[in-house]
């Protein structure tokens, strides 16, 4: 598995090998990507025809990195006489400053060459290596190389220029350099990707701050970090994870092409675009720290809410979007992803976040402005979501290119019986019912306080109460002592033991008398690995420690579970989960990946990586933040923030200074008093 | 007289060597020729060294063929290299064997460093 290094800026990213080169590779999307399109598929530097090798790499900032290179294989038997510093940055355009240093005591003549190509592939084509329809062309023009791809009216271009004079040809550019003894030479190579819109202009030109320069980004980042609450605590690991998260959240933001709102890309490299679910979850996780993330998520998702029935996009009125894609295949409807609605959880989560957002910020206007969208979302729960007319939320895929499973565990084998059979469709997974319950309870509050519609409020509360009763009757498996993962079309219980039921605690749909059993299952093997709660218990037929949704451990999943545990008063269990997550983060340099392997902790010293996991990933970045909320027991109560710390001794003292909210800014302190027996 | 005999005889008339001051022990040499094996016994005690052809057990037994030991005795072959090469086999205390380095001469014609520098002209 080759080591890859990435820099990113919103949904634009450059992924290369450790020496900074891009060679097309089938198993992983190396190259310069923006808006789901690959603008550079080849970017290979040579000196006198020889490839270079890395002495070291500095990741200066998320949008900036630097490579120290020497020609040939580095050995400590022969000193390199030339070294190259490759300093690259992203800010709209991709810039690479090349500095060649001559370490000889005499002049030298070198030929420096950059091999360049672009396949304009969509990020998914990069996976499957299909060839795109349309025409490709390369133009060598004075002072620049222009790579184009055209399909009907859709034109993407990559334009490469250099500050130093270069010889351009269709496959790249070449410099003949004469260097004096101990002298240096530099040039800056610039690659700009454009997608043509109205009047042949780059469609992204109507975005504010689309072309950004580094100093600006530096300042932005400083301001961003400045706005966040200050964390000081005894655990350096937790501090690192917190800082890393704030930086990654800044890194993943971009301005939507159509919505023009600051959005959150989901995960590098596969999901560098908005996903309804993850924008909402991350918005929720980050509310006590960066409420604007939640506000922006609510805005864009309201704007893109489903308006009609469209089987190709799994769209229905009131439904909240699953994902947006800007790539060519979507545009030509080879895939449904330009605006795809194949998810059943985003809709209730939208309402949940709207209420939580108001509780923290006190921003009543937004709640009033979104009454229409919120009501349509709630209506969806009872109509299109209620496929079987039995008052549960169901899903079934109608789109040819759509997703088999439309809960957060959306891989084809994620929803199974204990013995490995896969249920027929439609399916109603348990956490969806929890979200629906929570959405109705919270909406009732909103209806009463902001929409002055008490009748509607009462109705919602009745429905919620009724749903809760039925749910505890139909999903609970007395013989097993836990909730079924889902109901099948026949109303039978899909009985696999999975992490989903942790979300039920978070939603509050669990009957108090049963919460204890649920907590026990979550915090003990076979579900608990010692590093966290597995997506699927290790005694289930589909269990696979490196199965995406069938055994791997997802940090954000665990953050939701931890908050749920606290909601039901299991402070110690929540603390244990928080500690294992923090410990795991250490081995990822403070940056939680999308998921990691579910091997038993007794077997591994480190949490084993999930192959090619997205990293950074917005909801994983949100995880340390939500864990802090859980540990400190932060809860808005009218115009105050109540604090009820339950911190394990292992983490020591935690101070969170300047928590924003309807109260202005306030501080929270807590000391490690919960003692846990070591894993 | 062959180099081996010369070497062992020589040891008996050697002034006490302070570097061997703290060494005590016996080394048995078994030197094979096609016809027979002749044995030498080396006795190291407080700097003095004696070599006799007594045939008895010792703290350390060194075995090789006589021709090869001739080369070692003449300084042409290196005892440590010979051991690594398994051309000489040693049983018992390896440390005692390593003192052989103290007793055998260096290669014939080895240079005094200063002479080496002076004689640069001739090379």
């Amino acid at each position, binding site marked *: 598995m080759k080591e890859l290094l990435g820099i990113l800026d919103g949904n634009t990213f450059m992924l290369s090998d450790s020496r900074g080169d891009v060679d097309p590779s089938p198993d992983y999307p190396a190259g310069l990507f923006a808006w789901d399109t690959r603008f550079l598929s080849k970017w290979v530097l040579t000196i006198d025809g020889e490839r270079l090798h890395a002495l070291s790499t500095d990741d200066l900032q998320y949008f900036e990195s630097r490579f120290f290179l020497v020609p040939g294989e580095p050995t400590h038997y022969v000193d390199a006489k030339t070294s190259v510093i490759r300093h690259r940055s992203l800010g709209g355009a991709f810039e690479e400053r090349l500095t060649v240093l001559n370490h000889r005591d005499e002049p030298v003549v070198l030929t420096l060459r950059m091999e360049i190509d672009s396949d304009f592939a969509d990020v998914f084509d990069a996976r499957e290596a299909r060839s795109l329809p349309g025409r490709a062309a390369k133009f060598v023009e004075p002072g620049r190389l222009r790579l184009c791809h055209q399909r009907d009216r859709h034109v993407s271009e990559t334009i490469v220029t250099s500050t130093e004079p270069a010889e351009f040809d269709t496959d790249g550019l070449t410099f003949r350099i004469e260097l004096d003894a101990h002298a240096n030479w530099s040039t800056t190579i610039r690659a700009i990707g454009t997608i043509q819109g109205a009047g042949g202009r780059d469609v992204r030109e109507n975005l504010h701050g689309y072309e950004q320069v580094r100093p600006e980004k530096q300042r932005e980042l400083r301001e961003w970090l400045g706005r966040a609450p200050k964390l000081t605590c005894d655990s350096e690991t937790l501090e690192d994870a917190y800082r890393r998260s704030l930086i990654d959240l800044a890194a993943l933001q971009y301005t939507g092409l159509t919505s023009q709102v600051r959005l959150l890309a989901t995960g590098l490299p596969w999901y560098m675009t908005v996903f309804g679910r993850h924008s909402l979850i991350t918005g929720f996780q980050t509310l006590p720290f960066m409420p604007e993330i939640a506000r922006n998520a609510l805005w864009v998702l309201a704007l893109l809410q489903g308006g009609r029935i*469209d089987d190709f996009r799994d769209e229905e009125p009131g439904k909240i979007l699953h994902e947006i894609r800007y790539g060519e295949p979507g545009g030509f409807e080879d895939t449904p992803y330009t605006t795809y609605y194949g998810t059943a959880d985003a809709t209730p989560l939208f309402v949940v976040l709207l209420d939580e957002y108001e509780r923290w910020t006190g921003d009543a206007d937004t709640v009033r402005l979104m009454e229409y969208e919120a009501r349509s979302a709630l209506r969806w729960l009872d109509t299109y979501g209620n496929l079987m*007319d039995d008052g549960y939320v169901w899903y079934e895929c109608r789109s040819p290119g759509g997703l088999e499973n439309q809960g957060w565990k959306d891989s084809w084998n994620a929803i199974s019986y204990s013995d490995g059979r896969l249920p027929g469709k439609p399916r109603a997974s348990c956490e969806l019912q929890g979200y629906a319950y929570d959405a109705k309870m919270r909406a009732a509050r909103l209806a009463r306080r902001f929409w002055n519609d008490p009748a509607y409020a009462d109705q919602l509360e009745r429905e919620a109460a009724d749903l809760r009763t039925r749910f505890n009757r139909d999903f609970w498996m007395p013989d097993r002592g836990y909730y079924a993962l889902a109901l099948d079309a026949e109303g039978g219980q899909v009985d696999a033991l999975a992490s989903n039921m942790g979300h039920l605690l978070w939603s509050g749909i669990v009957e108090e008398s049963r919460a204890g059993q649920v907590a026990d299952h979550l915090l003990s093997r076979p579900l608990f690995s010692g590093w966290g709660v597995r997506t699927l218990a290790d005694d289930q037929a589909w269990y696979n420690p490196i199965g995406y949704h069938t055994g791997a451990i997802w940090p954000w999943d665990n953050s939701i579970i931890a908050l749920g545990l606290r909601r039901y008063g299991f402070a110690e269990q929540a603390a244990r989960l928080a500690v294992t997550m923090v410990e795991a983060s250490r081995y990822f340099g403070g940056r939680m990946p999308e998921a990691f392997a579910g091997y038993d902790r007794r077997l591994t010293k480190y949490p084993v990586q999930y192959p090619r996991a997205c990293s950074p990933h917005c909801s994983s970045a949100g995880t340390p933040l939500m864990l802090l909320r859980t540990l400190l027991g932060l809860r808005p109560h009218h115009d105050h923030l109540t604090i009820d710390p339950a911190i394990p001794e292992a983490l020591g003292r935690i101070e969170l200074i300047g928590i924003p909210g309807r109260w202005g800014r306030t501080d929270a302190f807590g000391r490690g008093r919960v003692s846990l027996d070591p894993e | 007289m062959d180099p081996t005999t010369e070497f062992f005889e020589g040891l008996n008339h050697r002034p006490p060597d302070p570097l061997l001051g703290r060494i005590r022990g016996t080394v048995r040499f078994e030197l094979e020729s096609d016809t027979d094996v002749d044995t030498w016994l080396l006795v190291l005690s407080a700097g003095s060294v004696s070599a006799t052809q007594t045939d008895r057990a010792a703290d350390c037994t060194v075995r090789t063929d006589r021709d090869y030991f001739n080369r070692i005795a003449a300084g042409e072959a290196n005892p440590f290299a010979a051991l690594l090469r398994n051309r000489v086999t040693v049983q018992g205390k390896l440390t005692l064997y390593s003192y052989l380095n103290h007793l055998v001469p260096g290669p014939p014609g080895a240079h005094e460093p200063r002479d080496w520098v002076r004689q640069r002209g001739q090379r």
Partner: protein
Amino acid sequence: MADPTAEFFARVEQRGPDLLPTKARGTLRFDLRRDGEVDHWFVAINRGNVLVSHELRDADCVVATDKALFDRCALGEAQVVAAYNRNDVTVQGNLPLLLMFRRAFPSPPGTRDPRERIRERFAGRGRERERERQR
């Protein structure tokens, strides 16, 4: 034969409030190219109420495309955001307004309520089960 685009705008004018969010307000202009000429459709939205005219007036959001393509959008055959992404529709001004207006476009022809298909497949078994359980 009838003009899908004209029928579409007529429908939006009547049913605006059911199709669009109550808070919706703003003006859009659709410039539809057809053999050399350009039809202008000016749409003024206020609290969900819609007024349509052919005035050539400045609008918050100006959308330009082929009449033929817009007809297909008006029939639900094509989708305006996808068309925008492949550069068949170009937009100047306030894009979000177009996204909001997207709600006014109909479903693809022949689209059925997903629940009907389920009802056929399961003959309303879900509801029956529910009734039994109630007893």
